[in-house]
């Protein structure tokens, strides 16, 4: 078995494990962790393309576990997104209220509601 398998799987596991530990409002760190996970998975893909012999089953099981954790991660991100969207709606309400109080001319809405 090639030497890189253990390291490749470990990189994916480590990147996945980092995600829940990052403060949810630290979008930069989240994006960086996700990019790191992407790089780790890409590295695995390259190894898989070059694989010449059989892969030990435990490695496959560890990879399948990483595959299985994705819905949970996606769920967290969707929750984050839904929360942001709800707050954005309330903020927009507050923006209109503030503008009406201040007598400032109504400006074009800076943000489109996404999703």
């Amino acid at each position, binding site marked *: 078995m090639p030497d890189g398998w253990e390291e490749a799987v470990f990189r994916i596991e480590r990147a996945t494990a980092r995600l829940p530990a990052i403060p949810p409002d630290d979008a930069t760190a989240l994006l960086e962790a996700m990019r790191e996970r992407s790089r780790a998975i890409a590295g*695995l893909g390259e190894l898989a393309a070059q694989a010449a012999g059989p892969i030990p089953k435990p490695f*496959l099981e560890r990879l399948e576990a990483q*595959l299985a954790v994705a819905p949970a991660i996606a769920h967290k991100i969707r929750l984050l997104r839904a929360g942001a969207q709800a707050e954005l709606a309330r903020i927009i309400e*507050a923006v209109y209220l*503030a503008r009406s109080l201040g007598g400032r001319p109504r400006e074009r809405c800076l943000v489109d509601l996404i999703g």
Partner: protein
Amino acid sequence: MGLTPLAFTGVSDFSDDFQAILNRAVSIARLPLIELQNEQSDLLTKKQLLTELRSAAGGLASALEALGEAGRTRALAASSSNTARVTVSLNGATQAGSYTISEITSVARAASETTLAGYETPDQTAVSSDGALELVVGSSTYQIDLTGRNNLNGLRDAINALGAGVTATVLNTGTGATPYYLAVTADSPGAQTLQLRETAGDAGSNLLTSANQGANAIFKLNGLDIVKSGNVISDVIPGVTFTIVSQTDPGEAVELKLFSSRSTLATKLANLADTYNTLRTAVNAQIGESAGLLSGDFLVREIQHNLRELAAYESSGAVRRLADLGLEFDEEGRMSFNSSKFYSLSDAEIAAAFGFLGTETSGLGGLSQDFEQLSDPISGLIKLQQDQYDSADERLSRQIDELTSRIEFMQLSLSAKLQQADTLLAQLESQQVLLEASIKGLELALYGKKDK
């Protein structure tokens, strides 16, 4: 491969934390906004209430001042027996009287002449042989130099620039070969010489007609001959201005009467009751259980105090208090004017009433100053209070603007978070596709070979 939502069933610390952060941020922004909104709303209401109070206090001040003026002038009114001949108005008179105007033989009018000859053009045809003319207005003479503008327009402009008390205009009759004429009219009425001489000092060289050299008002007042250059005359009878309108017929006379007018006084007293009640109502709205936002304001207490002083005002003499003039109060403190009682007063009592009313600065009328001190639109106490509210309003507006900027920044930040969440989801989906493909390939390598 698509992502399966809601497979994660546990309560996410991740999302809870994020929600808490969002809620805290929004609360920080929203609470001051609501407070500012309430504060601004209160300020607006207070300013409106003060405006009402200022208007009501100003109304009462004016009513009292008018009564003071009536006291000083003894409510004099003026009348003319024939307004088609003479009109009359008061100009500070304080004494009753009667005057007769007769033999109005002339009504004052302004001198007005035109050139004897017409001119072919207004801007080409010469009006003077040597470009030098002399204008005579009454006893004054003015030299006119038309060098470079020896035509009607030039002459018109030169005369109007003299400041001689006349106005020149160019007329266009539209008739004949020489349709253009110059008209010269005195700015004020009265008989006076009006000539435009070709040769200085030579009346025979006058270029103007002599049809209307103006006229004075000529009449008799109580048999005395009077000649005035104008028809509006205010320097014959002290405090009275009268205007000569037209000539009298032979033997005709016009009577001018100055008299104390009960109806004038009654109107002013009724107005006092109305304005008193208006202010009282406005003030009472700020007192008691259902008081408005000005409850407890020193201005309210000040107005209350002044109203009490007015209602209780007393003087000496035959007319000592408001009730003696028919101004009465009901159980609720509303003032009303009993006109029957007022009109039943004797002439002596009316005369005494003038003393009670005083002047604009003394007696009952003098109380107007107390209310003017409150209502003066520039330096009144209410205006000063309004200015303070305006300053507070400006401060609030600045705070609201700052808060608005903060909230707009939060809006942008949240929008960015949304976009970042979408990016994360896209990345995750891409990762899954790649990971799944890798695993399938590895399974094939592992189990496919094993099967063989």
